[in-house]
C-alpha cells in the first residue's frame, strides 16, 4: 500500500529497530541511500547495507538476512514485481520500497500489511481500481452451492415445481459464468494496458530528501545528493524533460532556502563552506574538467547536431568555433587554463552561436556545488563520474566493490575518488563517441521492420565497457540520436532501437537492451520489457531477466536469431 505520511508510517516505525537496506546499482539509488544513511546516523538507527545487482542477488541477500531482520528497505528495486511471491517472506517481515520503476505491481499496491510503498501518489500512476482486478470468488461458489442445495431440496417436491427450479438455477448459473468470463477478459485487458509500458517516477533521492525536510533534518549535503539523483534520471534519459524541469524547480526552492542566510560584506560564509548554486549551464559533458574542444566532440547533443563523424561535421565545428571567435589553441587547452577573458562570457557566446547552428537547447537548468577554491562540480559531472566508477571494468573487481567505491565518491571528503571517476568517465565518453562514429560509418544499424537493431561484435575496441547496463544505455541513446540525424529514411526516424553487446565470452551470452524511439516530446515509456518476456517464452530461448529494469536482459548467443525473429513477429 502507499504510505501517506512518510514520517509516521516509515521513519517512526523503523527508528527504534534494526533495518536491512537493499540498494540497487544506479546513481539515484546511491544518492537516496546516502541521504537515508545520514538520517540513520543522526538518530542512531542500526542498519546493514547490502548492494544487490539483480533479482537473484536480492533473493540471496534476503535469504541471508531474513532471520535477523524484520524491517527491510528496498531502494530502486522491488516495486514492479510481486515481491511476496518472489521472496516468500515470513508473516512479520515488512518491506518499505522506495522505487522509481513503474508500473508498480498491483499486488504490491493492494497489500495492506507487508508492503509499504514510499512513492508519491500524485506521480501519475494510473493504478487500476481494486474491484477491477480482485474479486471474491466465494460468492460464486456459494451461489452454486445454493443451486445444488435447491435441487436436492426440490427433489422432495412435486415434479412440476422441480423443473422450474432447475431451469431458474441453470439460467442463473449460466448468467453468472458469462459475467465472470466478461470480468476476467476486462481484467486481462486492464492489466495488459497497465503493465505494458515501463517508465520511471520521481527520483528516490528526492523522496528521501523530502522525508528529511519534513523532519527538519535536511542538510546541504543531502540536498546535493538529491540534486545528483534527479540529474542522474535526466542524464540516463529515464524521465521526460518536463518532469526534469518540474523536479529542478522543486529543488530550486530548497536551494534558495538553504542559501539565504545573513550573508553580507561582514558576515560572508567562508570559502570552504559548501555552496549550491542554480545554474543555467551548458549541456557540454564535463567541460569544466576537460578542454572545451573535447567536451564538444564527446557530448551527444553537439556531436549529433554537427554530425561529427563526417568530414562535413568537422568543418562545421571549425566554423562554429570561428564564429564565436575562440582560437583553437585556447579551446584545446584544459578549461581551467583558458584565458579569463574567454571564460567570462562563455555561456552567452556559445548560446548565441549555437542558435545560429540550430542548437536551441545548448543550455540546461542544473545545479553546481562549490567548496574551497579548487572544487567546483556540476551535478552532471558527478553523475558521470559515479556511473563510471560503478561500472568500472578496468580492474577485475566485483560489482559490490565498485558499488562501495561509487558510494564513497559521493562524499565530499573523497575527492580523489571523484577525480578518478571523472577520468574514467572521460575514457568512457570517448569510447562511446568512437563506437557511435564507427557504427554510423559502417552502417551497423539495420532496420528490422518494427525496430532498429545493432549488434556490437566482440572485436570492437572497448567493448568490455558496454557489457554494463548504464554504459550500454548511454551508447544506445547516443547511437539512436546520431542515426536519426544521419538517416534520410523518414520511417526509420520513429523506430525504437534494440542493441546487443557481448557480455561474457566464455559463457556465450550477450546483453540486450531496448530503448523507445527518439522524439522531442517522448514520455520515455518503454514496451520492450514485456516484449522480451513474450519473445523469450514463445521461442524458449535461454534468457535471464535479472536486471531491475525489465528492458535489459541477458541472452545466449545462439538463441539470438530466433529471439529476434519472434520479436519482429510480435511487434509488427
Amino acid at each position, binding site marked *: 500500500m502507499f504510505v501517506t505520511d512518510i514520517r509516521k508510517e516509515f521513519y517512526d516505525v523503523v527508528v527504534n529497530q534494526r533495518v536491512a537496506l537493499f540498494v540497487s546499482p544506479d546513481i539515484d539509488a546511491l544518492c537516496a541511500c546516502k541521504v537515508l544513511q545520514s538520517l540513520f*546516523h543522526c538518530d542512531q538507527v542500526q*542498519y*546493514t547495507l547490502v548492494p544487490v545487482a539483480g533479482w537473484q542477488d536480492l533473493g540471496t541477500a534476503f535469504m541471508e538476512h531474513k532471520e535477523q531482520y524484520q524491517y527491510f528497505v528496498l531502494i530502486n528495486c522491488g516495486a514492479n514485481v510481486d515481491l511476496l511471491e518472489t521472496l516468500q517472506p515470513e508473516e512479520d517481515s515488512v518491506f518499505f520500497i522506495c522505487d522509481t520503476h513503474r508500473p508498480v505491481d498491483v499486488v504490491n499496491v493492494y497489500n495492506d500489511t507487508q508492503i509499504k510503498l514510499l512513492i508519491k501518489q500524485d506521480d501519475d500512476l494510473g493504478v487500476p481500481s481494486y474491484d477491477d482486478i480482485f474479486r471474491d470468488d466465494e460468492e460464486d461458489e456459494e451461489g452454486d452451492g445454493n443451486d445444488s442445495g435447491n435441487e436436492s431440496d426440490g427433489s422432495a417436491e412435486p415434479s412440476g415445481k422441480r423443473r422450474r427450479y432447475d431451469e431458474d438455477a441453470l439460467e442463473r448459473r449460466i448468467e453468472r459464468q458469462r459475467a465472470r468470463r466478461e470480468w476476467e477478459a476486462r481484467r486481462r485487458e486492464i492489466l495488459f494496458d497497465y503493465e505494458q509500458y515501463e517508465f520511471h517516477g520521481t527520483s528516490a533521492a528526492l523522496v528521501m530528501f523530502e522525508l528529511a525536510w519534513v523532519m527538519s533534518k535536511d542538510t546541504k549535503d543531502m540536498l546535493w545528493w538529491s540534486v545528483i539523483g534527479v540529474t542522474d534520471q535526466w542524464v540516463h534519459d529515464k524521465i521526460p524533460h518536463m518532469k526534469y524541469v518540474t523536479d529542478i524547480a522543486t529543488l530550486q526552492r530548497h536551494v534558495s532556502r538553504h542559501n539565504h542566510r545573513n550573508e553580507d560584506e561582514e558576515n560572508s560564509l567562508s570559502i570552504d563552506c559548501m555552496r549550491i548554486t542554480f545554474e543555467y549551464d551548458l549541456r557540454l559533458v564535463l567541460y569544466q574538467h576537460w578542454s572545451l574542444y573535447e567536451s564538444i566532440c564527446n557530448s551527444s547533443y553537439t556531436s549529433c547536431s554537427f554530425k561529427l563523424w563526417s568530414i562535413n561535421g568537422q568543418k562545421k565545428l571549425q566554423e562554429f568555433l570561428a564564429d564565436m571567435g575562440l582560437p583553437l589553441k585556447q579551446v584545446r587547452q584544459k578549461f581551467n587554463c583558458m584565458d579569463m577573458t574567454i571564460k567570462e562570457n562563455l555561456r552567452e557566446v556559445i548560446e548565441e552561436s549555437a542558435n545560429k547552428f540550430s542548437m536551441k537547447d545548448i543550455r540546461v537548468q542544473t545545479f553546481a556545488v562549490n567548496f574551497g577554491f579548487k572544487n567546483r562540480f556540476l551535478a552532471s559531472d558527478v553523475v558521470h563520474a559515479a556511473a563510471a566508477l560503478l561500472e568500472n571494468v578496468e580492474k577485475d573487481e566485483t560489482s559490490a566493490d565498485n558499488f562501495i567505491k561509487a558510494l564513497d565518491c559521493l562524499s565530499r571528503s573523497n575527492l580523489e575518488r571523484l577525480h578518478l571517476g571523472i577520468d574514467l568517465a572521460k575514457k568512457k565518453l570517448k569510447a562511446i563517441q568512437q563506437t557511435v562514429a564507427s557504427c554510423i560509418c559502417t552502417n551497423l544499424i539495420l532496420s528490422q521492420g518494427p525496430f532498429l537493431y545493432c549488434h556490437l561484435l566482440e572485436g570492437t575496441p572497448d567493448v568490455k565497457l558496454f557489457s554494463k547496463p548504464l554504459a550500454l544505455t548511454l551508447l544506445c541513446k547516443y547511437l539512436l540520436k546520431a542515426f536519426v540525424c544521419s538517416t534520410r529514411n523518414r520511417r526509420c526516424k520513429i523506430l525504437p532501437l534494440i542493441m546487443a553487446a557481448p557480455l561474457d565470452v566464455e559463457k556465450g551470452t550477450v546483453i540486450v537492451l531496448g530503448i523507445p524511439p527518439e522524439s522531442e516530446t517522448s514520455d520515455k515509456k518503454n514496451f520492450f520489457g514485456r516484449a522480451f518476456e513474450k519473445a523469450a517464452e514463445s521461442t524458449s530461448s535461454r534468457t535471464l531477466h535479472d536486471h531491475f529494469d525489465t528492458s535489459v536482459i541477458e541472452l545466449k548467443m545462439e538463441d539470438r536469431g530466433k529471439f529476434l525473429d519472434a520479436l519482429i513477429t510480435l511487434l509488427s
Partner: protein
Amino acid sequence: MFCEKSVELIRELHRMGDGQLPAFNEDGIRQVLEEMKALYEQNQTDVNEAKTEGKSELIPSIKFRHSCLLRNQRCIAAYLYDRLLRIRALRWEYGSVLPTTIRFHMCAEEMEWFNQYKKSLATYMRSIGGEEGLDITQDMKPPKSLYIEVRCLKDHGEFEIDDGTVILLKKNSQHFLPRWKCEQLIRQGVLEHVIS
C-alpha cells in the same frame, strides 16, 4: 668474533618493527649461552693460572672475555625484555585470546608470563569501576560517537551483539553498529571504519 650472535638476535627483533613478534629464536639463545659458557670456562682457567703462576699478561684477555660476557648478557636480557613488552602490547591489541599464529611464536615461559599478565590485568579491571569492573582495553582513544559505520572487508560469518541479535558479516556490506562491539573486529582487520 665474539658477541656477534647476540647482536644478531637484537637485529632480528629490530627488523620486525611495529610490534610484531617473530618466532622465539631458541637456537640463537642456545648458541649465545654456549658461547658465554665457553668464555666463562676459559676465563676460569686463565684466572686460576694467573693466580697460581702470576702470569699478569693473561689479565687483558681475562678482562676482554669478561666484557664479552657482560655484553652477551646485556643483549640476551634486552632481547627477552623487548619480547615481553611486545607480548604485553598484544594483550591490549588482540584481547585475551591470541591468534594461533602468534601463539606459535612464543616459547613456553613467555606463554606463562602472558597468562600471569592477563590474570593481573583482569584482577585490576575487576577492582575498579564498581561492581562489574571496567574494561579499560576498550575505547583507547576518546570516542566521537556511540555508533560507527563499518564496512566488512572479508566474509566473517555471523556476529552476535549485546542484545542477542545476530548480524551476517559479508564482504562489502556496510553496517551501523555500536562502537564497543566493532573495535575488536576493526583491530583484527575484518571491519573497516568508514568516515564520511
